[in-house]
């Protein structure tokens, strides 16, 4: 049959998004766009302390307020069952006790006839607290620390001795601030009970996860809960858990006996959906005088909420990026009275990469090597941890081609050597070795007698292009035009889908679609075999091909039948097949899944007097394995780059150390890049289809972000001679 392996590395320049027409006309419907007859509106009440107990909560005024139907607090909330974990914990049900664990925690919900009435009444709930001292400082010795939280601390060789003997050593601390995902779409849950069944229109990245958690909490079977997420206004990791507003909306709907819509406000998006951890990275590098690494020690500390759970192995990047005979990596978490920390586009990698790639740059200056050369000199040809080959790895090409496109050779190696007017000019580079996480996934493919085909999986398209690339992939595998194939997703009743996270969805659902298409073609072959008049009666699947809706003998397109005819002959309306995928095992394959690789080249302009940083241009070259749709893949890298610019220069979720309140929880105060911040961006893909999954992809949703911050910091050093080891880099750090 037609296999993906026979297809080119880049499947054409890329078609337009198939959901584009809906999105440019305002017809794509997000959770908050749905309304139901009799629907009521909810508004949350949040704590104004970070640690303590509620001693009194008075809802009298709120209940008397216009249009209010119900006020729910811990005093009258339903008792809900414990929230089950996925690969990570979910928040426990809200309103189950009087304990306050962070500023902004939900302590009540008001349901009213209009949003205006609900919001106004929520402000009328009076609360008194017993205030406890909040732990807010990551370095507070009283704060609980979790060592080796994921059992991934790594050591090989003898780092201590190697460092002692190293002629050159770098020993520095790199910090990154807390960032907030801030997808533009306000997360919304519209909950509607019908007897014991529940329908949710919900913003998330994993409908089956929400379904499972809500069903468990409310003690109903999973198939009694349906979660619909055809579109979601961005996620960047924010939708990978079942956040507390979801059960709150479900509970509220049960209390008032009608559908309830709970739409978070922007400030609530800062406390209610998690945010990127702050990180502290302590790095020691040992090297020879000519710049060859002899030891890497990378320790990290990241922030964690009191009852939270988070996977942010910042130090892991140091296990795979460079060849070093001696490596130690250790991670720790510290529990604080802060809102949940959570995945945000490239968790762990983004912070750890900033630290490691800054340190490598410092080493280059220390030994007098070109920062590009030192990265090539210490290139990891095989997985340095296991000695296994990579499933594919084009990092060297990323660096070399990127340098060419950027004009790295025009760089004057001296610091403060390039300027124009008030501005110092600097060039910086960073390499990226990225990990991705694949989950099991299933999909169904259906071919109908009218020539149309449908692919179904309970996944989401958070803007990454799943609607489009899965339709393209199925069309390729079934020999159909892309217009004939419709990808359907975002419904928990469809075949169980994987999370749209960890850069793993394309591999997961793509492999499932690949499997389903293979099985569907097999079914057609089997059907044909039962028809003695079929020109395909006696061929096996290995000897057929499909194109233009026809199945035919390999090498002889005249001997075959159309798929539609096979159905007609057998009196069938449609034929369907289920497929699934599970991640391969590195042990079985004898190779290390390389994940995407990349290189960033950045030109910065630093106003010497004012300290203002402007990015002039960025070259970002990435190895994403097989690229299913280059246009959309480029958009993923572009978006990641913008996220990286935000992390490098702007984004900082600030906590008041007195109160634990997030001090800048609005779009006016928390700065994300705007259009005017954009440099020229050159995007290019290199590499080969990856050997780790059948379709050869690596996933490019996150890697674009990683490395931007380090390249910017390295460029700023080249421009100014100032090494900034904390993010974001702001002008006060650069004013002389």
């Amino acid at each position, binding site marked *: 049959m037609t296999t993906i392996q026979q297809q080119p590395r880049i499947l054409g320049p890329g078609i337009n998004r198939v959901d584009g027409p809906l999105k440019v006309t305002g017809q794509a419907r997000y959770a908050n766009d749905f309304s139901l007859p009799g629907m009521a509106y909810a508004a949350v009440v949040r704590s104004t302390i970070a640690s303590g107990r509620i001693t009194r909560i008075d809802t009298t005024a709120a209940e008397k307020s216009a249009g209010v139907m119900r006020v729910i607090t811990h005093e009258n909330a339903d008792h809900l069952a414990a929230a089950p974990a996925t690969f990570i914990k979910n928040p426990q049900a809200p309103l189950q006790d009087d304990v306050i664990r962070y500023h902004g925690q939900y302590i009540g919900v008001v349901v009213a006839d209009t949003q205006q009435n609900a919001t106004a009444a929520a402000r009328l709930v009076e609360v008194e607290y017993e205030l406890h001292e909040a732990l807010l400082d990551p370095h507070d010795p009283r704060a609980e620390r979790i060592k080796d939280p994921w059992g991934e601390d790594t050591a090989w060789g003898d780092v201590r001795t190697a460092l002692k003997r190293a002629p050159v050593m770098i020993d520095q601390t790199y910090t990154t601030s807390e960032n907030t995902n801030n997808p*533009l779409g306000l997360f919304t849950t519209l909950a509607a009970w019908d007897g014991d069944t529940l329908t949710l229109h919900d913003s998330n990245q994993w409908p089956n996860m929400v379904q499972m958690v809500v069903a468990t909490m409310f003690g109903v079977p999973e198939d009694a809960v349906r979660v619909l997420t055809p579109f979601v206004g961005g996620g960047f990791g924010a939708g990978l858990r079942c956040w507390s507003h979801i059960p709150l909306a479900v509970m509220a709907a049960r209390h008032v006996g009608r559908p309830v819509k709970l739409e978070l406000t922007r400030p609530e998006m800062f406390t209610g959906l998690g945010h990127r951890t702050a990180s502290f990275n302590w790095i020691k590098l040992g090297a020879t005088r000519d710049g060859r690494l002899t030891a890497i020690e990378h320790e990290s500390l990241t922030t964690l909420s009191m009852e939270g759970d988070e996977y942010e192995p910042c130090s892991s990047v140091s296990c795979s990026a460079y060849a070093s005979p001696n490596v130690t990596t250790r991670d720790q978490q510290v529990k604080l009275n802060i809102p949940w920390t959570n995945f945000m586009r490239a968790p762990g990698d983004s912070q750890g990469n900033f630290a490691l790639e800054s340190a490598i740059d410092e080493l280059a200056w220390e030994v007098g090597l070109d920062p590009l050369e030192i990265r090539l000199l210490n290139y990891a040809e095989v997985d340095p941890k296991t000695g296994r080959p990579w499933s594919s790895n084009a990092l060297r090409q990323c660096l070399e081609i990127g340098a060419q496109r950027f004009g790295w050779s025009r760089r004057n190696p001296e610091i403060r050597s390039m300027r124009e007017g008030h501005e110092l000019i600097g060039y910086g580079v960073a390499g990226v070795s990225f990990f991705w996480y694949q989950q099991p996934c299933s999909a169904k493919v259906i071919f109908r007698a009218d020539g149309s085909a449908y692919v179904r999986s309970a996944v989401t398209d958070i803007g990454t292009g799943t609607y489009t690339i899965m339709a393209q992939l199925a069309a390729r595998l079934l020999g159909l035009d892309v217009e004939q194939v419709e990808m359907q997703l975002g419904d928990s009743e469809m075949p169980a889908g994987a999370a749209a996270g960890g850069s793993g969805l394309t591999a997961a659902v793509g492999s499932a679609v690949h499997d389903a298409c293979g099985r569907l073609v097999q079914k057609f072959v089997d059907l044909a075999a039962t028809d003695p008049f079929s020109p395909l009666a006696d061929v096996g699947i290995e000897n057929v091909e499909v194109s233009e809706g026809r199945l035919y003998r390999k090498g002889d397109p005249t001997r075959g039948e159309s798929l539609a005819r096979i159905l007609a002959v057998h009196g069938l309306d449609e034929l369907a097949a289920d497929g699934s995928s599970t991640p391969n095992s590195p042990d079985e394959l004898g190779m290390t899944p390389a994940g995407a690789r990349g290189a960033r080249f950045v030109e910065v302009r630093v106003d010497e007097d004012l300290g203002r940083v402007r990015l002039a241009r960025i070259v970002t070259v990435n190895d994403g394995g097989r690229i299913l749709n280059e246009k959309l893949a480029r958009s993923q890298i572009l978006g990641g780059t913008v996220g990286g610019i935000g992390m490098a220069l702007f984004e900082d979720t600030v906590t008041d150390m007195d109160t634990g309140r997030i001090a800048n929880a609005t779009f006016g105060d928390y700065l994300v890049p705007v259009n005017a911040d954009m440099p020229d961006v050159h995007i290019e893909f290199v590499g080969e289809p990856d050997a780790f999954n059948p379709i050869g992809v690596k996933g490019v949703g996150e890697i674009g972000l990683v490395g931007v911050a380090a390249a910017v910091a390295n460029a700023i050093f080249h421009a100014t001679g100032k090494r900034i080891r904390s993010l974001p880099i702001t002008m006060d750090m650069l004013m002389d």
Partner: protein
Amino acid sequence: MTTLIVNGMEHPLDLADPRVTLLDALRDRLGLTGTKKGCDQGACGACTVIADGRRILSCLTLAAQCDGREITTIEGLESHPMQDAFMRHDAFQCGYCTSGQIMSAVALLGEDRAGSDDDIREFMSGNLCRCGAYSNIVAAVREVARHA
């Protein structure tokens, strides 16, 4: 009774509660959910609509203030070349900011401010795109402006 003229249609509205913003009226009363709420406080541009020929933020405009004014929303565009250009240049990802971006871009053409990429970037900066499609948005606007 307040009358909103939205996309050429008159909509009489009972605004006994004047807290209803233009954005809420469009979305909750008229079912025109193409206009999006991203911050509800004038800091993201997702709710951009055109009122009497000028782009405004519907989240900070009370519906009552719009009595008799002509409002154009994304639903009121009739196959505008900007929509096609946004698709061809992949000027969006999740699509949530897209209505606001397109309304802003359409108004920008009328303001004669799409002369250079720098101008497009500056005068489109009131519309956040968290997916980061900015360069593609500039490409789409540039193309339509050149052919206008």
